[in-house]
């Protein structure tokens, strides 16, 4: 996210706070795909992830006047998305459709070993990325895909910066373990 876009996001939020529907459309167009993907990786259900987007941006519409600009708008959006996703997951758990069940649904395709048999290390890596716990998945996505700094991840997840660093380190170790179990050696750890 460039500094210019961050400033432009601030302008949109100021207009949204004034009830500008067009500004809302622009902000939505700019961020909804990333919000959707972040939510989808957490809730693992497209329907739920789509509902999340509406809820997240409706919150933006309602709360824009309270946005203080202390963090980037994209960071604010991801923090709201995470909160909504966790609430959705809790609701699903109540309905006995917990994260494990979601994992089971996803694991019906090729497992990592099969992927390696296909001589496709990249595919094995992607497969293993989906097998990380939700705690590890979110931190990997925030750093690698959403390009968030240590401080921004700390703000989104609500943990100290040092914990962000060690959590990502352990997520990567877990990923290496999964890959090793699938027969992929990368020379680390």
């Amino acid at each position, binding site marked *: 996210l460039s*500094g210019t876009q961050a400033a432009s996001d601030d302008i949109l939020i100021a207009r949204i706070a004034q009830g500008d529907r067009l500004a809302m459309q622009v902000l939505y167009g700019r961020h909804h795909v990333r919000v959707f993907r972040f939510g989808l990786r957490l809730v693992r259900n497209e329907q739920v992830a789509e509902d999340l987007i509406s809820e997240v941006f409706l919150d933006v519409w309602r709360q824009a006047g309270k946005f*203080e600009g202390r963090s980037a708008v994209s960071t604010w959006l991801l923090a709201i998305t995470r909160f909504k996703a966790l609430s959705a997951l809790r609701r699903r758990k109540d309905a006995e459709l917990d994260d494990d069940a979601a994992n089971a649904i996803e694991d019906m395709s090729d497992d990592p070993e099969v992927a390696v048999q296909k001589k496709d290390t990249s595919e094995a890596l992607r497969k293993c990325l989906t097998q990380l716990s939700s705690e590890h998945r979110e931190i990997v996505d925030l750093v690698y895909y959403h390009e968030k700094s240590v401080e921004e991840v700390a703000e989104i997840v609500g943990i100290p910066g040092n914990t962000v660093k060690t959590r990502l380190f352990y997520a990567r170790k877990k990923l290496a373990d999964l890959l090793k179990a699938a027969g992929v050696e990368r020379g680390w750890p």
Partner: protein
Amino acid sequence: MMPTNNKKLLEQEPGEIEALLPWHAAGTLSARDTRRVEEALARDQSLAVQYAAIREEYAETIALNESLGAPSSRAMTKLFAAIDAEPARKPSMSLGLSTAIAEFFSKLSPRALAISAAVGAVALLLQAGVIGAILAKQQAGSFQTASLSGPRDTAVRGPGQETGPRALVRFAKDARISDITAFLDANQASIIESMTGGMFRIQFGDKPMSRQEFAGLMTRLQSEKIIELAAPAQ
């Protein structure tokens, strides 16, 4: 004595530079940390091996996320139906200011970029605060104050008979929108005009003030941390 498990765990803690490698791959480290990581990578082969693994993870995480596609139009339809069902909101004074300042900034942006030697420097300014960026750029030229002499009437008022008094105000470089809006709310003030030199013409309330009240207001303005300069205005 430390339990074995804890000890083992501590041994697995990443080193300071090692922990930063993923952010280095993503290009989100500060210039200082980037330099530290690059120096460490150049001299430590095991770190370089780990960094190569991180770059693979980085690439595949992007590929995985990109493969997730996009939401259907249902989400947008649902959102805007919900927005349309929301009660109409009254524009507030402070939000009006936010928009004014943001719009003001957007007009300046291309010029700011042209002036800046590096876009990165502008990005840093932006992170430091949108207001700071506006004013910092505006103050590059010379600035002449408007009349500093107060009106001669016993009561101080704006151009209309029943409007509040006005002042020219330049906010501090590090003042944030939230600080400014809080200041305006607290003083029942609204921004009337943005001027050259990073100045804003601001109206205080909708009733005239006595000379004494206005002098008190000016003293208060001049002592505000977020205000760099304040002067009476017509």
